[in-house]
């Protein structure tokens, strides 16, 4: 188990992946460079306070105990995003890895590392995080059904299925470029190109 405060590293060898990381105490902060020391300490204490089983990992139940998440329409999807595929435990490293998506992009980062692996908080990775919330079957496409599910979660019960269906159709049609009636990640990025994702998917204190 890793304990904070581990040294903040420049090692970016692990590219972005959906959590398929090996555990190792020395790798704790891999990919989380630039997260400030105090933030890591603080988040670690949050991590341990969430960890009711006190086994150094968080389970889905631990997340579900957070009352606000229960009323967040996307709560369960977001909880799932913390867990590597097929696993139901997440350690501190995985926890931080997910949170690192929401670190604001700082000015000095924009220029550097053109060749290096993309940092977790890049625009593309932020978008990918959101994309994955839709893409349940992980085929890199948001199908009509997947979109409809998310829509249903987000727009309350007053809207008829038919109406929702046409919204979904319309949304897909707006983004769809290759005519496969689904939104691929490329199309997803394209349709949101004017949106200031760097800003809208960042939280100030995570730097």
């Amino acid at each position: 188990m890793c304990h904070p405060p581990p040294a903040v590293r420049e090692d970016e060898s692990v590219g972005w992946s959906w959590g398929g990381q090996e555990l190792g105490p020395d790798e704790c902060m891999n990919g989380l460079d630039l997260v400030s020391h105090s933030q890591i300490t603080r988040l670690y204490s949050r991590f341990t306070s969430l960890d009711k089983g006190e086994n150094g990992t968080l389970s889905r139940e631990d997340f579900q105990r957070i009352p606000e998440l229960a009323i967040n329409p996307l709560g369960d999807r977001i909880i799932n995003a913390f867990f590597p595929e097929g696993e139901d435990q997440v350690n501190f490293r995985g926890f931080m890895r997910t949170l690192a998506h929401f670190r604001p992009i700082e000015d000095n980062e924009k220029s550097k590392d053109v060749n290096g692996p993309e940092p977790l908080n890049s625009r593309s990775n932020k978008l990918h995080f959101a994309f994955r919330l839709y893409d349940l079957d992980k085929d890199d496409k948001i199908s009509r059904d997947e979109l409809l599910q998310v829509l249903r979660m987000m727009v309350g019960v007053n809207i008829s299925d038919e109406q929702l269906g046409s919204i979904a159709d319309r949304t897909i049609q707006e983004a769809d470029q290759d005519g496969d009636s689904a939104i691929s990640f490329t199309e997803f990025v394209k349709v949101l190109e004017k949106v200031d994702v760097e800003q809208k998917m960042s939280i100030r204190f995570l730097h």
Partner: protein
Amino acid sequence: MSGRGAPGPRCGLLLALLLALGALPRARGVEEQSGGASQGFQVVSFKWHHVKDPYIIALWILVASLAKIGFHLSHKVTSVVPESALLIVLGLVLGGIVWAADHIASFTLTPTVFFFYLLPPIVLDAGYFMPNRLFFGNLGTILLYAVVGTVWNAATTGLSLYGVFLSGLMGDLKVGLLDFLLFGSLIAAVDPVAVLAVFEEVHVNEVLFIIVFGESLLNDAVTVVLYNVFESFVTLGGDKVTGVDCVKGIVSFFVVSLGGTLVGVVFAFLLSLVTRFTKHVRIIEPGFVFVISYLSYLTSEMLSLSAILAITFCGICCQKYVKANISEQSATTVRYTMKMLASGAETIIFMFLGISAVNPRIWKWNTAFVLLTLVFISVYRAIGVVLQTWVLNRYRMVQLEIIDQVVMSYGGLRGAVAFALVVLLDEQKVKERNLFVSTTIIVVFFTVVFQGLTIKPLVQWLKVKRSQHREPKLNEKLHGRAFDHILSAIEDISGQIGHNYLRDKWSNFDRKFLSKILMRRSAQKSRDRILNVFHELNLKDAISYVAEGERRGSLAFIRSPSTDNMVNVDFSTPRPSTVEASVSYLLRENVSAVCLDMQSLEQRRRSIRDTEDMATHHTLQQYLYKPRQEYKHLYSRHELTPNEDEKQDKEIFHRTMRKRLESFKSAKLGINQNKKAAKLYKRERAQKRRNSSIPNGKLPMESPVHNFTIKEKDPEEAPDYGAEMGGGIEFLANVTQDTTATDSPSGIDNPVFSPDEDLSTLSRVPPWLSPGETVVPSQRARVQIPCSPGNFHRLAPFRLSSKSVDSFLQADAPEEQPRTTLPESTHM
């Protein structure tokens, strides 16, 4: 304001100001005249003094408005020089003329008029259209600039001026430290009117705009308190000021600011609640918005709280609920009226600032004082901005760059608030009042004219990120919402209380309690933004559909000059059709009596005219009906019983049939049965002759019902008719405005969702056929299907299936010869 010289409570304060010594030479002459001939009954009497006050006010407003038209005649000038600067210059010229004629400054901007009548509309407009999310997202920053920044400006400017005064550079002035601080406090505040006027033309990015603008609004509390405190200190005399007074001053700041805000919020609550129950009095609905907001302003003024804060927060807090509650038409009315009042007030303010400056009595020049004031306010503003930004950037996610800071410093414009405050000073207490007044005028002119003129090039030169308007996208809306949810979830998980957490909490609270209390039930259902965007997009599709058809020439009749005549149907509210679809709406929304009356009046008038002058009215008539028919799909809100609807349809039908019969006869038989009619329908016949040259010699004949439905996008088609067209506005409001909700569940009554409309229109056709026995059914063979832009698959099939084009309607556009008929209208 209607009291003409009524001696009662000074409702004519504005008048008083405008008239002052009442001394238009002409006016005096008139009075003498009317005094001379006072015996007996006079058929005509000239009573200038009777109307003088309101007359002059109206004239000034007219002059200001005409000036605005004048400026915009030349696009070159207005694109370089801000309107506010032009107005000041115009004011100077006009002031000069008045002075030359009279040698008395009869017209000045008095504080009373400014604070009671001119300022509230501007601030209300600002609050009501405040982008709330942006505003609250940057609230911390705004508050820091507004409070700390203003205090800093006031203190440093006042103290520095005092320091220079002690050095003797200004010569001999009868002022003390407190006078300087008083002056500093009134000159320190960035002015909302000036900032709005200048920044609206510059289009800097929204974060920058909201920070400068928000600061200018919220610093009012600070200004009021500082001004009051120092004014009372000056009155008291410098040596009698105790520490207790200073503490009182600080306490009063919190009371004034928080109290003002509270008053605003309370009135916003009240206003939202009231608009929830205005369903049956739609006509006066918009009035509530203005009256209650204004009351919030007056109330806090009465309690000596910050009135600007009150009305700002009233607007900010009520906007969501009011927009959801009031009808589409009312929302549009509120929008336009508010903009009109605000823009009018702004125009008058700047013009009178110019006029007020032409008054030798108030001028007292002191070069050192004036120049140093200019230097100090600019320098200290810049220093203040840099210092505060340095602090803020440690806490802000979106950093404020150097460039932003430059614009923020440079955008610190002073304006009419400072002028009104300085004019309020009592010469008995503040000995150098005139010096302060002249300096304030110079400062205001300098910032508005010089900085206003140069800020645009500066922004371009610095390459400040501009704001860009773009079309709403369903994806952006939808995913943007998802982002919000994600962020608040992440904040919850990481245990931080941040913006997203608070916003999420608030929106939950709003949904659970506030909306339930303050919103109509129907509005609660349909207020989802995603739905609204969807609805807007559908409407846009419909527009582009018609536009495309137009481009192809197949729907050419749609645009016709007679759409202008739709002014006549301003009061006719959307009519539900006889079809089943609208029954539910009839049940849900009661018919408003007021509207109905208007409607029947309109109806009667029309039928009278009809008999009088069938010919000239004929074409017009057809166009007059259109909009109502058309609205039935989109807003089947209230009114008009099915009976009337039918009557109208029948009317149209009969007319059409008569016309067709005639033209058929004339075309077929080659003779004019009815010479009169022939004359009257000359134009149509030109058209018909062409029709008769169609190979099979038959006249196209379609149901008018179809015609109307196909024209239903007409008003949207011509959005530039804008204000003149009631119908147009309604549509525009829906297309462009981001109302949070509409009364009718948006999207549901969109034609897209009512394919059954199709059937009902078809079924309504047969009654039509009865009088037209002799008319051969039109040919249906030639079909040119209007092209549909690829991106609205759902609209297209529906349109194609039920709409046809009546070539008779093309009488107004004979140059185009569309022959779009529909294959499936075989019921005829």
